[in-house]
Structures are given as structure tokens and as C-alpha cells.
């Protein structure tokens, strides 16, 4: 609307800025993929070329898959992210429903606590969580990777905002139709909040798939390591300065995220953009 009325110069400038910032974010990725295709000799050669002179992809990628237990790391990533996301939705949705649609004493106070939870960076909690996990004997287990993230203040907040935009009449109709409060959450609220669920799922999966900090603290055994920690271990032990296979590893690790995001892009934008129409 008002944007359309801007002149061609302004449009050009706007696109230039968008392109430049997009490129800034993309270049490291492109470089990573490019390196994963090159033989060791080309990687440190002066000069700049995206495509290798000698294709070395097969060697790099097969080393990535065989020399390190990368498939195991990926499987761990899937297990941990899946468990975290399932628990988060199972806990956030009813909590958000209560905060959005039920009237009870202390509701505003609880919501304030959620907001405070939103402000605390996870790193701050690392030490107490570590001690807690140690006392419970959970260190170096899947549970140690999963439990600290089971409750997401961000998820509660996002779902609450979305649920609030759903009219009370729908909740009333559902109660008259015989749905219990939990049935209302699962059969009515959550399906209606699908864009928010998808947006949240992407956030959750991306951040826990890529998380290095907490797994570094929580697990030691190689067979429990999620991908980033695995790559780090691989670099230290095996590869040394062998960057080709390392970059191939990294490419394989982020590939599922990129694919998932592209597939869900539309809902992702919608989910952050606002409530139901």
C-alpha cells in the first residue's frame, strides 16, 4: 500500500539492503558447502573460488559418515529434539489454555512468572541444573539432555497469546458439546493454533538440534551425543585439520533443518504474524 507508492530509487535501495544482509547471513553457509566439496589441498589455497577444481565430495562425505559415528549423532539429535518438543507441547498447551481461558486465583501472578522465565537465559541455569542432575543421578543420560527443556516459558507465552485470540464462545460451545477441559485443549485449541504450533516447533527443534552448551555439560558418552557435540568430538579426535570431511559433517547436520524450515515456511510466518482470522 504505502510501500508501493515509494519511488524506484527507494525500492532499489531497499532491495540492496535486503540482498546485502541476506548475503551476509548466507555466505558462511555457502562457504561451508563449498569447502565440503574440495580436496584438502584446495581448502587453504590463496584465492577465491566457490567450486572446486577437483571434485572431492564423495571422499569428504563418505569419510564424514564412516570415520565418525555421525549417523548415531543424528539419531540422538532426532530422539532428543523429538522428546523435548513432545514434552513441551504436552505441558505448554494446557498451561497456556489455563492462563488464557480459565479464571482462577493467582492467574496473573503465574503469568508474570512465565514472563520472568522468558527473560532468564538458559546458561544462567546451567550450574543449578547440573547439580540437580548430578544429585538425581541423571548425568550422562538422555534424560539429562531432555528434562531441562521440558517446560518452555516461550511456548507457554506464544500459545497463550494465540489461545486468547480464540473467542470464548468456541470454548463454551465445546463445553456444551461435552468436551472436558483437556479435550478442549487437544481437540479444539491446539488444532486452531496450528500456525503457532508449527512456528514453535521450528524454534524448538532448531535451537535444541544446534545446542552445544548444555550437551557439553550433561553428557560424556559418545553414543549419547547430539550432532554439534559429536562434530566437536570428531574434530578433536579424528580430523585434526582435515576440514573437508568436517565441513561435510556440518553440512549433513544442518541439512534436515533447512529442508524442514523450507517446507513449513508459510505456517512459520503466519504463526508469528498473529492469531486466527
Amino acid at each position, binding site marked *: 500500500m504505502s510501500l508501493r507508492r515509494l519511488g524506484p530509487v527507494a525500492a532499489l535501495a531497499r532491495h540492496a539492503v535486503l540482498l546485502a544482509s541476506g548475503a551476509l547471513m548466507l555466505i558462511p553457509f555457502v562457504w561451508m558447502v563449498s569447502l565440503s566439496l574440495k580436496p584438502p589441498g584446495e581448502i587453504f589455497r590463496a584465492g577465491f573460488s566457490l567450486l572446486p577444481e577437483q571434485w572431492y565430495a564423495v571422499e569428504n562425505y563418505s569419510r564424514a559418515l564412516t570415520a565418525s559415528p555421525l549417523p548415531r549423532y543424528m539419531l540422538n539429535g532426532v530422539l532428543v529434539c523429538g522428546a523435548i518438543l513432545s514434552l513441551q507441547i504436552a505441558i505448554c498447551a494446557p498451561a497456556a489454555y489455563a492462563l488464557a481461558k480459565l479464571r482462577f486465583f493467582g492467574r496473573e501472578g503465574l503469568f508474570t512468572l512465565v514472563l520472568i522465565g522468558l527473560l532468564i537465559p538458559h546458561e544462567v541455569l546451567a550450574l543449578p541444573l547440573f547439580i540437580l542432575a548430578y544429585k538425581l543421578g541423571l548425568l550422562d543420560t538422555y534424560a539429562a539432555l531432555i528434562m531441562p527443556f521440558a517446560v518452555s516459558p516461550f511456548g507457554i507465552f506464544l500459545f497463550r497469546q494465540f489461545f486468547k485470540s480464540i*473467542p470464548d*464462545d*468456541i470454548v*463454551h*460451545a*465445546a*463445553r*456444551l*458439546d*461435552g*468436551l472436558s477441559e483437556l*479435550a478442549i485443549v487437544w481437540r*479444539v485449541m491446539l*488444532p*486452531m493454533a*496450528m500456525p503457532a504450533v508449527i512456528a514453535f516447533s521450528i524454534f524448538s527443534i532448531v535451537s535444541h538440534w544446534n545446542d552445544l552448551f548444555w550437551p557439553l555439560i550433561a553428557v560424556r558418552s559418545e553414543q549419547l551425543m547430539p550432532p554439534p557435540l559429536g562434530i566437536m568430538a570428531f574434530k578433536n579426535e579424528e580430523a585434526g585439520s582435515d576440514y573437508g570431511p568436517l565441513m561435510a559433517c556440518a553440512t549433513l547436520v544442518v541439512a534436515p533443518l533447512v529442508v524442514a524450515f523450507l517446507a513449513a515456511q508459510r505456517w512459520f510466518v503466519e504463526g508469528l504474524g498473529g492469531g*486466527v482470522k
Partner: protein
Amino acid sequence: MTAGLTFNGINKSFGGAHVLRQVSLDVASGEFLSLLGPSGCGKSTLLRIIAGLERQDAGTVAIGGRRVDDLRPKQRDIAMVFQSYALYPHMSVADNIALPLRMRRLSGMQRLPLVGGLLPGSRTTQAGIAKEVTRTARALGIESLLARKPGQLSGGQRQRVAVGRAMVRNPAIFLMDEPLSNLDAKLRVQMRAEIKELHRRLGVTFIYVTHDQTEAMTMSDRVAVMAEGEILQVDAPQVIYADPANRKVAEFVGSPKINMLPARFGADLTHAAGTTFDVRARELAGTAGTLGIRPEALHLAEAPGTGIFTGRVRLLEHMGSDLFVHLDLPHDGEGGTLIARLLAERAPQIAFGQTLHLGVRTGRILVFAADGRRVQPDPAPAAVLRSYA
């Protein structure tokens, strides 16, 4: 399976706002009762209390003679059609209508996706539900829409789906909260007839909330007029119109609005609009109040005189068979406007700006005390009657 409904002394406040005050009403089994009142007067709140969606601060609700205050909404055998329809946007029309049956007839396990279909009995129950959904949809003429989502329907179609979802489980009582207010005028008239027909066919108790007097007057057995959280009068539509209990009811019902003239009551006569009327209300003698005159109670008069309004025609509205005449009353008689509803045959005789005389039959004048209470005028003394003979 229909049931009557009684509520007694219902009170409800939100924060500091007293929304319902001592509301009591008896609704007979099978009756069509309208709750009529301006928006914000507490109609929806009352409906939600009846349905069990909101809890009253005081008072009791009984359905079929049984107190239901501690029953949850789904246990009350009540269905409700919401103003916004409140359909589930992610479910097809068929699923919307089927949900109340599924929740009642299938166990929690049987409702699970995939697994549920394999459990014993669930197939036959599902088939029974599907049959009833189809039957309901056919009755409402929405059979061809069963596979669509609510978002793909027009307002009138959504309204029918909402009625279908309420109808499918044969409730004892139907609550409807302004179900027609989101439809265009033409569809509203059509749906009015359909809802009336539905009531006749189902024969169950209907409680119909509206702020539209035409809906209330045309559809109901009885109308309960509400204002500011109170029920002012409960009566048949024609009684509400002809014999209103107080000023608010008289003013709320009737279109064009009733003429309200400030009046002073004497011992024998009543003074209003610069003239006198043969209206006596001994208990009001010496006080000020109001005379209410329905537009159709006025008729053309030949010449000025006592009990005759004289004024200038300010506006003429031709309504086909009727003609609405707006008359400016002279300022020495406190001014104001009078609206008369005359037969259109008279129209050629009346011109904008002309001076017109209007008379009124004494028996059709409604008398209100200063506090808005309706007062029955005393009969004319015999002497006066004789002089008329």
C-alpha cells in the same frame, strides 16, 4: 423430552458491575420465550448462567423441576446457538455436527484416531452417528455442505450448521443468543420463519435472546423484556405492546416509537402538549408524569379543540399501506414531535409544512407516573358518559 425451566432470584456481578438483579422467570415446557432488551442489558449472561457456562452469585436454576446449579454444562441437557455461531473452524461441517454425539456415545479410547476404529462397537456407533448427522443436515438443507469447512460457508449456511450442531442431540431446551443478528435483512426474515417452524416441529422449549423487537414479537409465545439486568415484564407479544407495565417497556417495543408527552395530572383532566385530555388518574392528581400514545392511536381531526394536537408537518414517510406523519408541536405547549401512523389513502391530502390536527381516542392513552410506573386511569364519571350519549 422437552422440559420447563425456572430461575429464581438470579444475581450476577462482574467486578463492580451488577449485571443481573434478582431475575426470576418460569418458562413452560415447549414454550417459545424471547428475552428482549437493548445490548448490554445482561441477556447473554443470563443465557450462559442457564447453560452452566457461568456461575450466578445468587439464585437457582431448575430444569424440569430439578435444580441444576451444580451440574456441568454437558449434564444439563441444553443446547445453545451462539451469536458468532462458534463453529470449529478446523473441522468439516459433518464433524462439527457429529462432535456432540461422538463425545457422548464413544468412550475416550474409541475416540482416538486410528486405534479407536478397531475397538469393538465403535464402528456401529460411528455409523449410527453418521446417519443422524445426515438426517439433521437434510432437515436443514445443508446436506451438500457436509464435507466443507466453516470458512467456506456463507453466514446463513454457518447459522444452519450451528443450529444443526445444537439440534442433533435432541436437547430438552434450546438456547439461542441473537442467532440472526449477523445475517442480512432478507435472510433474517427467512430464518425467522425457519426457526419458528423448527420450534413447532421439535416441540421443545426455546429461549431466544434478541435485541430486535420484530423478532421477539413475531416468533414468541411470550416475551420477557429486560433492561439493565432486570426483567421488566413477561407477557404475550400483543399484551407487551398494548398493555406495557412501565415506560421503558412501552418505549422499547413498537416501531415507530411510542409518543411520550410530558403531562400534568389534575383532579379531572390531564394537561399535555398545550391541550387537555379527558384522562383522570386520581392517585396522580397534582403530579407530573407522562402520557404515551402509540402512533396508530392518532387519527386526523377536522378542527382544533380540546384533546386535539395541532402542529406543522415536518416529515412524511410513505411506507406503502401506511403513512408516517411527523408533526412539530407548537412551542407554547412545550414543543416536541408527534409521530402518527395513518392510512396511506390519506396521503394526498397531507402536504409538507401544512398545519394538521390529530385526535386520539381517550381509551388508547397510556398513563405513566413520574417514576415510569404505568397507572390505570380512573373510569370517566357517569355524568360525562351521559353527556356523550
